[in-house]
């Protein structure tokens, strides 16, 4: 068995006096797909934001691809470049075209030649089926198209890990499917993924493991089939009964 690509040990995080994450222990192996679920305010988003250090943790260790994240980490940008992230609100850059959104980081962070970056971007856009929109601006696209562009933008950095922070929560029901399809095909391609979502259908289809969080703690962590078939804790049962 290989070394885990993400390793979190005894991690605690506070927002002021409020403890959002309590004693988190988590190991994710390469090519595994993890789905994180739980009620809102349970710290799911904060957890994955800690993995690329958009949030700082106060106690414990987070090791991503062999690099420990702490205040001393000098090359946090290098680690972030290897960890792609997709946000609930898409967060595309509205002043740039779809193509430029995708090529910006490869050109300026990875120093890729412009032509190569554009080819890569068009390739990725094709995979999420919006290559015909490449020259439009984000404001001209539907929510689902924007989110697929955001996925393509993250993939253009050729990351080792992809984090999804409730990627379908801000979308119309009709558009959820097209985004989930893009994520499923990405998962089948062997990407390491951590997905915060309420889409249990997606979890059943692709996840290797499901994590249930509540009040800043990991309540349950189990193989997908086991998680849905016989959840151990009562809290998980209650949650599943409400959401399914």
């Amino acid at each position, binding site marked *: 068995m290989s070394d885990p690509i993400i390793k979190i040990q005894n991690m605690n995080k506070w927002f002021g006096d409020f403890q959002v994450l309590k004693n988190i222990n988590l190991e994710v192996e390469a090519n595994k797909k993890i789905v994180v679920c739980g009620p809102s305010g349970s710290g799911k988003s904060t957890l994955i934001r800690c993995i690329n250090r958009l949030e700082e943790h106060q106690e414990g260790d987070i090791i991503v691809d062999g690099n420990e994240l702490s205040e001393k980490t000098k090359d946090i940008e290098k680690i972030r470049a290897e960890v792609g*992230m997709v*946000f609930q609100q898409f967060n595309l*850059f509205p002043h740039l075209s779809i193509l430029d959104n995708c090529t910006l*980081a490869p050109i300026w962070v990875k120093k890729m030649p412009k032509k190569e970056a554009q080819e890569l971007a068009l390739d990725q856009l094709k995979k999420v089926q919006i290559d015909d929109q490449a020259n439009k*601006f984000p404001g001209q696209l539907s929510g689902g198209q924007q989110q697929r562009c955001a996925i393509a933008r993250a993939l253009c950095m050729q990351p080792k890990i992809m984090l999804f922070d409730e990627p379908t929560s801000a979308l119309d029901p009709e558009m959820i499917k097209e985004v989930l399809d893009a994520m499923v095909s990405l998962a089948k391609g062997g990407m390491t993924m951590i997905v915060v979502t309420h889409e249990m259908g997606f979890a059943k289809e692709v996840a290797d493991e499901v994590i249930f969080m509540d009040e800043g703690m990991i309540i349950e962590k189990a193989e997908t089939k086991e998680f849905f078939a016989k959840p151990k804790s009562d809290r998980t049962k209650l949650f599943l009964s409400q959401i399914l």
Partner: protein
Amino acid sequence: MQTINFLKPSRDNIKNYSIIGSFLVLVSLIDVISNAFLKINLTSFLPGSLTTLFPLIIGLIGLNMMRIDYSGNKTLDLLNKNINTNNFNALLTLLILFSIIKALPQSLSWMILDATISGDSKDACTGTGACWTYIKVWFRRFMYGMYPNEFHWRINTAFILVIALGFVGYFMKENLKKYLALYYVIIYPVIAYLVIYYLISGGSFGLQWVETGAWGGLSLTFIVSFFCLIFCFPLGMIFALGRRSNLPAIKYISICYIEFWRGVPLITVLFMSSVMFPMFLPEDFFMDKLVRVIIAITLFEAAYCAEVIRGGLQSLPRGQYDAAKSLGMGYWKMHIFVILPQALKLVIPGIANTFLALVKDTPLIFVVGLAELAGMLALAKTNPKWLGFAMEGYIFASIIFWIICYAMSKYSYNLEAKYKTER
């Protein structure tokens, strides 16, 4: 024929109403116009106060009759919607129209009909109107200050060169476009400085030295505004970013800087720059007064720019920072490619506001003895040979300033439209 209900105009008899209504409004306007322009009182048969009120009453009745909702006539609907929604608005419309008409003949005759422009001394101005001769005679002074007449071509050439260099960005090749910001922020000001130094100041290449004290008029307005605008923007950007920095030292230095410069009046800053500042400098160190003034205004306006830009930075959602960071961009890349382009686009109106204020603040440099356009006016109006023409001078200066400022604000609208990408 239907009976006409005067109080209730309606669609059914729209023709009668609109014709009678517009006729009455026309009568009231004719009365006022003949009164103002021809000095004929058409309604002299009416008793005293009614004569003055007559056009108002007639006009009101006329407008009332024309007020037909959904008349189907586009012009009439437009008129009703904009200036004739109710009786009060109709009254305001009439009053404004009448006062414009009443004021027109006097101003027209003063500015054009009775004005003088021939001749080249005060004696030519004998009429009751404006004396544009004054502007004509002093024109070169207003444009170039005390700069020797035979060297005015040097100022003109320098300005043409500087403007031409400013347009270089439009013709730059595609692969050089990424150096555009560098060009405008650093290279262009340096070249412009050298051009102005060698051409206008002279002293080398066989050009006679002209000290900055002799510079003046509109050309000085341009020089001061140009350098202040070009420097205060990047400086303001730096302090705006500094104020939002996580590093306490940088943050508090920026706050102190901004609060200090925003707290002092420009006029004292100018005094300081010309009187106090040289005292702190070593004996043999010389800095031209004009340079000191430009630095002072730049530092002053940079504080305002900084706050305007900070407003733009604050209005960006946090997600933009998150997205840029998650793609592996560091502080500078994130700001240069993601944050600043969006923030600056948002603050174009605010920046334009600051810049217009800057241009209109340049006359203040008169207090340190530099006479730009308004300063030259102040000098000219106290010239014993030309006493009593302040009005003409100030109207002239207002028109010039208005043209400059209007051009700038138009340009800012263009920029806004150009960088609009949402929908």
